[in-house]
């Protein structure tokens, strides 16, 4: 579980996060949604220690993340997995080496065990016979899956995804979403996902936090999102006509 209290982050005069407090539970897919520019990525980067917030606290289970030194944070991060918006695979290594990289760095496995684990997690994300390919030889969706495989290879306790399905076709996007959700349940990980994809919200929104202008305006589940009369989130969701229809269907059920 990750607990965030009263988090503030500014760039110069630009106050991006204005006191965020939230909890992300274990074994669930926690979604952060909001418009472009609402501060989702900044929030995620604060959670990971890539940006330093001016105020507030972040607690990973019992550990106070912001009290750690830079070096302690680096070591702590060995328990995290992250899927980047652009996959961020190492382009000087083939797919197999990318997936084995965290194992090579931090596990006590020998080369055969690492290889077996790599094949296992690649299979888990639905990829076979790609370990010798260069990342650039794969499609965007496949690269995302390799990135997920790399993120989960060393059994992380926390998984972060920044817009895991942006730039993918709807079918692949849904597949990636489901994959992340299954993995979260299977390994009982605390997963935090940044997205502005309404499909993801409906499919895997077990705990949704809605950010607007750096503040949390709504929090709930995908079951609740259609029943709320919260103005801010309604405006956000029903900016598309399609979802007005979906809501009607939902309420008539």
């Amino acid at each position, binding site marked *: 579980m990750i607990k965030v209290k009263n988090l503030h982050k500014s760039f110069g005069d630009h106050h991006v996060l204005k006191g965020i407090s939230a909890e992300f539970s274990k074994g669930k897919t926690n979604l952060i949604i909001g418009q472009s520019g609402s501060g989702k990525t900044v929030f995620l980067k604060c959670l*990971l220690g*890539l940006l330093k917030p001016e105020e507030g606290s972040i607690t990973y289970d019992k550990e106070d993340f912001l009290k750690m030194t830079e*070096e302690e944070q*680096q*070591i*702590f*991060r*060995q328990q*995290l*997995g*992250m899927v*980047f*918006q*652009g996959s*961020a*695979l*190492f*382009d*000087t290594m083939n797919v197999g080496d990318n997936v084995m*990289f*965290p194992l*090579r*760095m*931090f596990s006590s496995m020998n080369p055969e065990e690492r290889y077996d684990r790599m094949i296992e997690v690649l299979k888990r994300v639905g990829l076979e016979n790609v370990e010798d390919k260069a990342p650039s030889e794969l499609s965007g969706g496949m690269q995302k899956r390799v990135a997920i495989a790399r993120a989960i290879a060393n059994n992380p306790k926390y998984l*972060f995804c920044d817009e895991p399905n942006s730039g993918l076709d709807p079918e692949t996007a849904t597949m990636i979403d489901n994959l992340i959700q299954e993995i979260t349940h299977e390994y009982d990980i605390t997963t935090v996902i940044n997205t502005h994809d309404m499909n993801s919200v409906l499919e895997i929104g077990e705990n949704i936090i809605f950010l607007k202008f750096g503040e949390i305006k709504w929090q709930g589940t995908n079951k609740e999102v259609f029943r709320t009369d919260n103005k801010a989130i309604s405006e956000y969701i029903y900016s598309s006509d399609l979802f007005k229809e979906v809501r009607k269907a939902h309420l008539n059920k």
Partner: protein
Amino acid sequence: MKYLHNIGQYFIMLKEAFGRMTKRSVLYERSLKEIDELIIDSLGIVCFLSFFIGGVLTIQTSLNLSNPLIPRSLIGYATKQGIILEFSPTLVSIIMAGKAGSYITSSIGTMRVTEQIDALEIMGINSINYLVFPKIVAMLFYPFLIAISMFMGILGGYVTGSLGGYISTDDFIIGLQTDFEAFQIFYAFIKTFFFGLVLATMPAYFGYYLKGGSLEVGKASTASFVWTSIVLILINYVLTQLLLS
């Protein structure tokens, strides 16, 4: 102010490069790879340039030496001094700032803009140590490259001098042995050592702290070349003042 900030940030990067170490076997492997990419891959161009510059130095000196009172062996002497004191350490380093330097800036810069550096950090790796330390190790071998350049330059002078009939091989060798001072070799390699450190770290700095997208990678490579050359020339000036005068 901005310059001061950059200089400070550069030294923080250097400190971090020797900070928390990446797993030894990984660093070892990466260092070998960097030696291959930075040193071995530069051998060809460095040999080619050195050989022909040595040749040209010999031709030019001999064409300008029309006074019969000056011994012909001076041609060999001038070629040796030019190659060992300036061409090989300094000019080859500036060529390396273009070749190896822009490669370092663009490869690290690309890792920055595609979030690969963030990915390293998220995994709990000291990314500066992982990326920069092996380059510093590789550049410890830079003096070997320069020694080869010196040899090729003098060989170029020797071959051109005898084939072109500018100077007899005996005179050339007498020239090489004239006023041989070990301290000058020491001076040349001290320079080379510092140039190697600059070549490994300054371009890395420009790539690592790059902001923006792929357009900036190109701009940073150019800026890296310009600034690395300027720093090399200034260090050359200072070290020459300190060691030779």
